């Protein structure tokens, strides 16, 4: 088990399912930047998936990066620290640094995807700082809530500002190796930009982990839909 969770009987277990077959919670939020959880990866364990690569240190912090973003002109890393842990609740905070190099907006593998970002000539730095809590009251359900303050920095004419967002994900550990999650988020709050809603399925077996989700971003301009997929290993 690569995660420190709030439930004592599934903490610090070896890779894969615990002896009592409790399910491992998802190691990270599926939606990038805004969704997180209160979990920390245990010392000298790691998570290596298509979306995140993270490594735990001393049971108190983990560091990581988003490898797909690295490949798409967004060098990035994040550091997450445990704030406090109660028997069924875990609280952590993460600071990320995402540098959107010029051209990141069009670095898709297929031109059939487009970004609304307009940084063709300039670099934009995005610093999401979030506090996330995971409440795991029963073995079959967990609630993850994240509050994010994203600082956006760039040369003029980029407006340097901070944007607040919130995200909640409920994870139902439905069957032995399967979980279903519902995700809801709001970006901008009183300065509304978009809200996000999605659903996802997760399969986890020993060291293997895969998630597939479908999200909708609703802004005043309309609705965008977005499949999400993540596959990888819990080490």
């Amino acid at each position, binding site marked *: 088990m690569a995660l420190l969770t709030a439930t004592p009987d599934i903490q610090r277990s070896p890779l894969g399912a615990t002896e009592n077959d409790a399910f491992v919670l998802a190691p990270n939020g599926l939606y*990038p930047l805004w969704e997180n959880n209160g979990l920390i990866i245990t010392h000298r364990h790691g998570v290596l998936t298509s979306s995140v690569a993270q490594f735990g240190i001393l049971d108190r912090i983990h560091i990581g990066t988003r490898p797909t973003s690295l490949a798409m002109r967004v060098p990035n890393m994040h550091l997450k620290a445990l704030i406090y842990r109660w028997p069924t609740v875990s609280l952590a905070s993460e600071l990320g640094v995402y540098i959107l190099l010029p051209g990141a907006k069009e670095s898709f593998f297929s031109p*059939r995807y487009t970004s609304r970002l307009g940084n063709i000539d300039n670099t934009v730095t995005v610093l999401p700082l979030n506090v996330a809590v995971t409440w795991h009251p029963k073995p079959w359900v967990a609630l993850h809530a994240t509050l994010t303050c994203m600082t956006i920095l760039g040369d003029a004419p980029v407006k340097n500002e901070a944007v607040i967002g919130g995200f909640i994900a409920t994870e139902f550990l439905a069957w032995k190796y399967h979980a279903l999650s519902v995700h809801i988020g709001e970006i901008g709050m009183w300065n509304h930009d978009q809200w996000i809603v999605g659903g996802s399925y997760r399969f986890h077996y020993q060291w293997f982990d895969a998630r597939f989700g479908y*999200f909708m971003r609703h802004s005043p301009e309309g609705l965008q839909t977005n499949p999400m997929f993540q*596959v990888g290993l819990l080490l």
Partner: protein
Amino acid sequence: MACDWDHFALTNSIPLHGDPDANPVVDVFIGVDGLSWNTIQDALDTNEFDTTRYHAAPMVSMFPATSDASWTRLLRASRPGSYEYEYYSPPEDKIINQGYLGLLQHALPPVDGLPIDEPEYYEAFDYHANGYLSTVSSYQSNWMALHDSLDNLFFNLSGRAEFAHTFTAYMLELDAMGHMANRALVKKAFLLLMHRIESFRARHPERTFRFTLISDHGLDFISASVQELIAFNEELERVGVRSVQSFAEGRKKPGLFAIPIVHTRVSYLSINTPEEFAPNVAGLSSMARGVDLTMAALPNDPNEPDMKRIGIWRRGERIAQFGYFSATNTYRLDPDDRWSTLGLSVSFIDTTPQDFTDHELFLATIHDQYPDFFYRIRTALGAEGVLYPGQVLVSFKRPYASEGFKVLGGANAIATSGFHGGLDAGGSLGVVITEIRDLPAMVRSDNLLGLFPTLAEHIEAHAYPLHAPMPGAAFIE
């Protein structure tokens, strides 16, 4: 694949803002595939289209009026192989992208590292699709795809307009509706687009948005029954021309042979044949079922070696011909030819052959059944627009059209509600609607970028170096 989804989620959830003083005016160009002048007329009848804000004019497309070739020429991208994905390549002596695999090229998403590519002109558009299967859904679920496309277009515009002076977007859905649905729905879709433009403008008072809509061709909204879809390879055989797959195959036997390019459902057809066969093949092809006109280059006149000659055939007879002098950009027409049977408003001073400037003929024919007849035919048969033009071109008499493909299982009556490609005005007249400038009575699509320098600059800055203008296209509007 999943990488794109991840990046799509990440970049589109960062609310990046710019300074409105840095770009107080944003020019927005929306390429609406297949938006027909017919649809604009329909919309005007409803009083729901605010004409006080816009200048509008029909824009006559290239001939054959097919999307990829037309957008390519209009936006001056690199020349495509020919008028459609499927074409005959003389160097290889074979048909490229033939059959269902060729058709599939329209739907498959291009992905880096895979041998699937999109035409270069797509790069001229900041936004042109919203997912791997967006082309398929445009044809399969017209309204869902339209709303999806509008949502994505304006979502992208809202972000890009924070910094850009110009934004370009492409929409396929109205063309798909014109082929698959009916005229009333296309009008409704167009009015929805105009409504969304006004809603967006109202939400963004911080900047001035100047919208321009352009299209690559018209749509005639004349439906064809399955019996009116012509399998031209069979028709060629019937009129005495062997239909073959390559010149090598054709030369195995004596007599005329030709390669008809039967690809999509359009109201024209391209035929490749040896140049020496072209006039005869054009004459015989004009006797095929459903054909209105055929055209092909004629051998040069030894007395006028600088004059390129083109013949026009109908029902087996050459009814007209014209000559073209590239040095002076003038055309020579003989009053003895039957121009009036073509419905062309060409008048002569006397009974001798007369030279006309390109602009004179453009103005004379803009309201005719075959607008910009001479320029369109001349450039269609030349290699300035496509790498490998056909030697004979066929324009169908509507409602007849090229069958294009057969649907497996026999349900062949799809994409038959409206057509384009042929010479007639319905399928040839696209539109320009703009808030930026006045427009002439009609725009020749090859001159569009000359009317909108900001669009030309945007393409050069963000997409590709502009291909050379079509020779002889430009004139003072």
